[in-house]
């Protein structure tokens, strides 16, 4: 059956799959968001250790999902991988740099003779959770605001801005998207910690986390509203049947109206996040992470679908409209997409064992006595 799929269908399937991975990554940034809450919610060593150890048992999943996102884009849309990573050199290098710092910080933080000291490793986690996520948001923002590149006949990229991608962070739209993701990650991080930690005799700690969820949500709101309103009002990039790219007024509003399912995903996602915040802040619930996580995934999907479907170049070029990348001109060959689709049949199995192991490991909340031994983070 897969072998008989149209090339265009395969391209769409792979944009959906990449969007799913990207959206799951946005959910899993609760790890990064949680890291940044450390100074705000933890008032002693035990609380700090609970935060770090709780998140430290999930950091690999976030990290791996980011790697998979890169790998899937490389496999399915190699022109995007080559153009964006090669062109927007500094934005990607800095993002990666923050993830390198994060990868060792859990393991090394409390180990004796760790050379840099616990505070430095904790600051690495803070850098990853703020700068890293902010830049990821700015990079995603360029799906709508465009980038500064041209492609020659051989599809080799020339970046026309000397900041090599960092200029993305100076656009108000991109910056707002980045800041929204930072605060949303903090909301998710707070909810995850509330769900994962045993708060016996630590009511204050729990209260601080609930307050942090609400405050960070309120901080996220203005950036979210700015992004949404801008998205609906802005001129967008459109591609016609002949492959010619042009600017169209209210393109992304038109996309939403043309794709009611995407509009639904966006609205349901936002409502789920809001409900999650309310039940966490005011109802004493610890289940908010699941609603907010699902909400974040749905919002993420709507953002990626908005950028890539309905004749929209998902990686547009401001410098040369005709160099813009669409899911049609940036994709791998039909053979590779077909082979990859067979491989993707294994994804449900992977998700199933992740869910099984997660539920088994988290069946019992993380307690203070577990984070005090020498093997803990």
């Amino acid at each position, binding site marked *: 059956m897969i072998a008989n799929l149209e090339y265009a269908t395969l391209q769409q399937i792979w944009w959906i799959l990449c969007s799913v991975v990207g959206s799951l990554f946005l959910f899993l940034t609760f790890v990064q968001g949680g890291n940044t809450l450390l100074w705000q919610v933890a008032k002693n060593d035990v609380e700090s250790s609970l935060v770090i150890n709780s998140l430290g*048992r*999930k950091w*690999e*999943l976030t*990290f*791996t999902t980011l*790697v*998979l996102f*890169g*790998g*899937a884009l*490389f*496999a*399915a849309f*190699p022109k995007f*991988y*080559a*153009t964006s*990573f*090669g*062109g927007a*050199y*500094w934005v*990607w290098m800095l993002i*990666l*740099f923050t*993830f*390198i710092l994060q*990868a*060792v910080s*859990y*393991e*090394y933080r409390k*180990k*004796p*003779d*760790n*050379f*840099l000291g616990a505070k430095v490793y904790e600051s690495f986690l803070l850098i990853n959770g703020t700068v890293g996520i902010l830049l990821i948001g700015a990079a995603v923002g360029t799906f709508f605001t465009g980038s500064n590149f041209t492609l020659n*006949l*051989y*599809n*080799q*990229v020339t970046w026309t801005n000397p900041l090599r991608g960092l200029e993305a962070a100076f656009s108000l739209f991109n910056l707002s998207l980045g800041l929204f993701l930072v605060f949303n990650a903090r909301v998710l991080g707070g909810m995850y910690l509330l769900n994962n930690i045993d708060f016996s005799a630590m009511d204050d700690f729990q209260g601080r986390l609930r307050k942090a969820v609400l405050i960070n949500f309120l901080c996220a709101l203005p950036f979210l509203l700015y992004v949404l309103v801008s998205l609906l009002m802005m001129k967008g990039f459109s591609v016609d049947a002949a492959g010619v790219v042009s600017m169209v007024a209210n393109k992304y509003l038109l996309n939403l109206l043309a794709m009611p399912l995407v509009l639904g995903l966006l609205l349901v996602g936002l409502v789920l996040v809001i409900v999650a915040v309310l039940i966490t802040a005011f109802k004493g619930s610890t289940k908010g992470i699941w609603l907010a996580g699902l909400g974040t995934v749905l919002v993420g999907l709507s953002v990626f679908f908005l950028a890539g479907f309905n004749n929209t170049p998902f990686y547009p070029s401001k410098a040369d409209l005709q160099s813009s990348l669409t899911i049609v001109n940036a994709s*791998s*060959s039909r*053979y*590779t997409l077909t082979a*990859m689709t067979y*491989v993707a049949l*294994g994804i449900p199995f*992977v998700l199933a*064992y992740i869910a099984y*192991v*997660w539920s*088994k*490991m988290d*069946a019992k909340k993380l307690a203070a006595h*577990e984070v005090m031994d020498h*093997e803990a983070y």
Partner: protein
Amino acid sequence: MVDVDLSLVNWSRAQFAMTAMYHWIFVPLTLGLSFLCAMFESIYVRTGNEKWKAITRFWMTLFGINFAIGVATGIILEFEFGTNWSNYSWMVGDIFGAPLAVEGIFAFFLEATFFAVMFFGWDRVSKGFHLFSTWMVAIGSNLSALWILVANAWMQYPVGMAFNPETARFEMENFWAVLFSPVAISKFTHATSSGFVLASLFVVAISSWYLLKGRHVEMAKKSIIVASVFGLLGSVYVAFTGDEAAFENAQHQPMKLAAYEGLYKGENNAGLVALGMINSAKKPGDSQHPFLFEVKVPGLLSLLANRESGSFVPGIDDLVYGNKEQKIMGVAEKMKIGQKAVADLAAFKQARKEKNDVVAAEALTRFTANKEYLGYGYLSTPEEAVPPVSTAFYSFHIMVVLGTFFPVLFIAFLFFTLKGSIRQQRWLLPLGVLSFFLGHVAGQMGWAVAEVGRQPWAIQGLMPVKVATTNLAVGHVQATFFMFLGVFTLLLIAEIKIMTKQISIGPEGV
């Protein structure tokens, strides 16, 4: 094609080599130590002996310290294909991306998911499930190596693909040919088994140190027995797979084989250099002797390269300047054909842009006739096709000498430990400590043989490294080079300090 700034190429090359070499400090240990931890834990589960549990947890702690920095250095490698080699990424993304994505879906998640159970699940899951998780981490780690090595093997021996002039890239035609290429199989088996050897040397080294200090004697002896058996099997396998790798080099990358053997003039019944010193003044085509001195084993290179004694093994001069008698086409001739292919491709692309179908069809016909040597069209001189001979030669021979030494070492440790006199072997124990560093030297030399020997090609015969780079100002790459060099060095120092501290603390209760 764009003009090439050679300093950019060399800095990009240096950055990738630096990250790869740092990564390869940690990865082989992960590959092998994960299996050793699984073996220690299997013995614990089977015997119920708590001492084996303490042994498992001790080695697991060291595994975790190493694993974290391996992951940290690994992520940058994946993305450097895009950031620094974007022309390459586009040209081969259709083939190279697929193994990387499969690696992400199947291998990395296996590792990532069960890693948490392995470290934090002792009191949260059953004994059996914990053991299962440890094995899954080991399998996941090694599967990760499979996919990246498949991709690397494809660069050494590109199969299962065709060049599409419309998109100006290589496109996959046979996934199974890519996956089961003989080079991929030998590369995977050779690299992973070298990891098994290195991890075994790590266990032997630390255990030897404990025995010298008279600490944790029982744990050290138990660990040595398991590691020596695993290391011995691993090193025998390394030898077999190394032989296979050399054979594949001879078939598909004869220039690499000639370089690491320092063979300039091809000959029948060629001898294998057992010991030698390269004459650094020697250049291809001149009459100087390639060695200041050498000791050769007669006929062995012919046997190694062709599985046939007395057979002809081409040298660097034969491959660069051609050898009519042996029907070997020289690089100069290939360059002429390649230059035509490059020009025809440009003409085709221009005609397509101008929508001139007649000119495009003519250019395509000419290109198709010449495309086999497309990559040679980018070389400036025939001699550019020769990799750095000294580096390749010394890397190969140091690796081989050390690879021959390790099984002997494992046999000695196994023999004296089983005999019960290992603590009295004061000459052997320091050698055991030193052996871990020798293992690292062998591993790094192995990568140098594979990757320096591949030069000047990013993809053997099809794409030189110099046209694979991203079009960047060299200052950007210099900045990131030093940024990563700084952070990796800091993290390496931290890792060594933490590791040595943990070793000095030692395991609990055994």
